[in-house]
């Protein structure tokens, strides 16, 4: 047994991972997504050294990750699955059903939300998904509490045989705090699946029974002592109270103190926003004239407070419904609620820098080639670093994981009776292709969709920090796995045109995409695999290729072609845009720009 240690600096995600390990989680699965990615990576970092029986894996997508971990808990083990909030959409099918069937071993679903949003398509609130599925959800305010809540969640799950959701937000996941590691409880890996088809494979008739039981369970969970709300300042007296959950609680603590209202404004932290404790609801409504509710992002707690006349929150527009609840917003809301005045300086609304593909990123070279090969095409794309092809005007749509291919099909069907049909080029990353692209490609083959699919195969899941894909044959803990071959998979979907090229070979690659476009116009779906490893991933592995030194000669007349069409941050406009120069601090030496300048002004140094 590992003993508790002294304080260490832990990121919220590391604290959650530590919580899983301390609490005997023997199976952890995930699909990467900001802000949740570091959870599984941290479990892998320590878990495997402790006990080789622990199963730790990146799954091909969130649904698969969920189902694997769920089966583990059906076999009686403590398991966990982690993902970002939109990943939970992908896993929502098993989630809804698992809530009915319940669990045998403890099962924790970690779904990280991203109010803001900072790195997501939506600001959706996973607690709403918990409510829809009818499972309890815990909402931590800090890395420290997130770790504590893992332990509470397992006990809750095992007491009521229910999946339990832990819902951290970006500000919990990606903050660091001094946290004391606790004692690690030894793993009990004794799988013991008790067959019970009327439950584990229930028909609709039995599902009705399960639903009845679930409702009854929820009523008891709403009375569960271990997840009771915490009255933060029990000495405070007043007719107005504040209720919060998640990181809004942390801001509220600081703001109430700064406003010197600690003794005047009773303040409660809800740890379990759903189901909200019945006695707490009664207490609030019996005791206070006015209640201000501060939570991210949807009015989950607020919705469960029946007497609307006394509640101030998102539903009546007192608290903003969109965006993060920042400390300054919370301070202003509290001051107004308590009737005190305060001065809050505001930040300048400076735009900041837009993100861009790294200097030397192979995606940039691919986009450049695509635009040369199909200049007036419709470009559907997907979720990953390559979403930033936006800056190059080589990305017209981004919907959700895998949609590049199905949307390309949709555009084809929309235009197919027109006399002039646009070329359609879809781009998707390797990891995203495996995640949700394959079924869409099967559909495109089946319908003979005339499109080009460029799979941007950089051999990693780059955006989220270089997690392996099924093609890399590496596990989360670094062991060798069976490689899934992308070419075979594409052919297996029924694709007849398949070429593989290196986008760094600018002219050769443009020719390849042109051939694919020509094929797609007359025959059907054509696939090009653009294969070149992510340079960040290469650097991480210490495998950076020798740089090609480039320079801009006197032939540059400042036309700006390279900035507009290529946008490498290594090329900068100088002398008021009269000239372009190479920024040696930024350039990665990929050499692709050598073929980009129409004047031939970019040369080897």
């Amino acid at each position: 047994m590992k003993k508790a240690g002294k304080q260490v600096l832990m990121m919220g995600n590391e604290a959650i991972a530590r919580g899983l390990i301390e609490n005997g989680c023997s199976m952890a699965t995930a699909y990467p997504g900001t802000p949740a990615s570091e959870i599984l990576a941290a479990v892998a970092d320590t878990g495997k050294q402790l006990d080789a029986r622990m199963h730790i894996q990146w799954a091909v997508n969130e649904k698969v990750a969920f189902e694997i971990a769920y089966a583990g808990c059906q076999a009686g083990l403590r398991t966990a699955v982690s993902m970002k909030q939109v990943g939970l959409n992908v896993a929502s099918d098993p989630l809804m059903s698992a809530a009915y069937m319940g669990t045998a071993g403890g099962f924790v679903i970690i779904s990280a939300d991203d109010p803001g949003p900072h790195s997501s398509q939506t600001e959706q609130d996973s607690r709403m998904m918990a409510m829809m599925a009818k499972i309890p959800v815990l909402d931590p305010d800090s890395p420290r509490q997130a770790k504590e809540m893992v332990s509470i969640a397992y006990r809750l799950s095992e007491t009521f045989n229910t999946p339990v959701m832990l819902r951290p937000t970006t500000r919990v996941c990606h903050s660091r705090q001094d946290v004391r590691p606790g004692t690690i409880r030894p793993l009990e890996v004794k799988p013991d699946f008790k067959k019970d088809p009327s439950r584990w494979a229930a028909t609709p008739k039995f599902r009705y029974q399960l639903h009845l039981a679930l409702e009854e369970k929820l009523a008891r969970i709403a009375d569960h002592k271990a997840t009771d709300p915490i009255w933060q300042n029990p000495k405070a007296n007043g007719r107005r109270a504040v209720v919060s959950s998640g990181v809004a609680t942390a801001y509220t603590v600081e703001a109430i103190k700064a406003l010197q209202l600690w003794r005047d404004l009773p303040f409660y932290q809800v740890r379990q926003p759903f189901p909200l404790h019945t006695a707490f609801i009664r207490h609030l409504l019996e005791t206070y004239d006015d209640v201000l509710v501060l939570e991210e992002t949807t009015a989950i707690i607020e919705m469960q407070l029946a007497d609307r006349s006394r509640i101030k929150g998102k539903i009546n527009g007192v608290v903003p419904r969109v965006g993060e609840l920042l400390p300054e917003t919370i301070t202003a809301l509290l001051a107004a609620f308590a009737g005190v005045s305060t001065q809050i300086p505001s930040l300048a609304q400076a735009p900041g820098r837009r993100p861009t593909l790294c200097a030397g990123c192979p995606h940039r070279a691919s986009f450049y080639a695509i635009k040369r090969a199909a200049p007036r095409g419709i470009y559907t794309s997907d979720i990953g670093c390559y979403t930033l092809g936006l800056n190059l005007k080589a990305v017209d749509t981004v919907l959700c994981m895998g949609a590049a291919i199905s949307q390309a099909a949709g555009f084809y069907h929309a235009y197919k009776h027109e006399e002039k049909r646009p070329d359609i080029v879809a781009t998707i990353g390797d990891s995203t292709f495996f995640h949700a692209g394959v079924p869409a490609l099967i559909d495109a083959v089946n319908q003979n969709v005339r499109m080009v699919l460029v799979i941007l195969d950089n051999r990693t899941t780059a955006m989220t920090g270089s997690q392996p894909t099924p093609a890399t044959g590496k596990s989360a803990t670094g062991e060798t796995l069976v490689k899934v071959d992308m070419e075979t998979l594409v052919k297996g979907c029924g694709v007849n045109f398949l070429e593989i090229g290196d986008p760094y070979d600018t002219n050769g690659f443009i020719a390849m995409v042109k051939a694919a476009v020509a094929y797609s116009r007359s025959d059907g779906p054509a696939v090009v695999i653009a294969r070149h490893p992510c340079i960040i991933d290469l650097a991480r592995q210490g495998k950076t290729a020798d740089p090609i030194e480039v320079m801009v000669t006197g032939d540059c007349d400042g036309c700006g072609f390279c900035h507009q069409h290529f946008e490498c941050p290594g090329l900068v406009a100088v002398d008021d845009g009269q000239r372009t120069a190479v920024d040696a601090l930024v350039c990665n030496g990929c050499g692709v720009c050598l073929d980009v300048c129409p004047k031939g002004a970019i040369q080897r140094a």
Partner: protein
Amino acid sequence: MKAAPTYQIVISGVGGQGVLFITRLLAEAAILKGLPVFTSETHGMAQRGGTVISHLKIGDFASPLISPGKADGLIALKAESLDQHGGYLKSGGWAVINGHAPLAIKGTTSLYYLDADQQAREIDDPRSVNLIMLGFALASARRGAFGHDGLYCSPHDVEAVLEIRLKRKNHRQKSSLRALKAGAESVPTA
């Protein structure tokens, strides 16, 4: 009893410059001194060359974010950050900025400049702007630039952290220590 001093520092730059790395070093230095720490970081899309900002809070705090008008200091790895994030500074705060300009006072903020890009070129280590700026900030604090309290840690404390963190990466450890030192030695004496 006097309340323990607190520090709130904003660190900003663009993705790829290593904002997170120096935030981490400052946080670890606080841990080594037994001080409570909170940081908040930018991850994801913005790390690809977009604006990246870290909040660092040392002392008795409950939350990871700094409110506008409350930061003691700002370390800006890009000069433009002063316009963008200067609003976090309290009156009388300080900013250490990567840029070429003389020491100045803007409003109530003292601005300390160092052309760290140039320095990075000089030591032939293009990725070291972050550590040069950190060394510069820590040494400026030592010289009393940021008021009596200075900062809670010295260049020496951060060296200790680097030595632990990069224990197995000899080459990086050496170059990091060199960059930190180069920055520290750039503080004008007088």
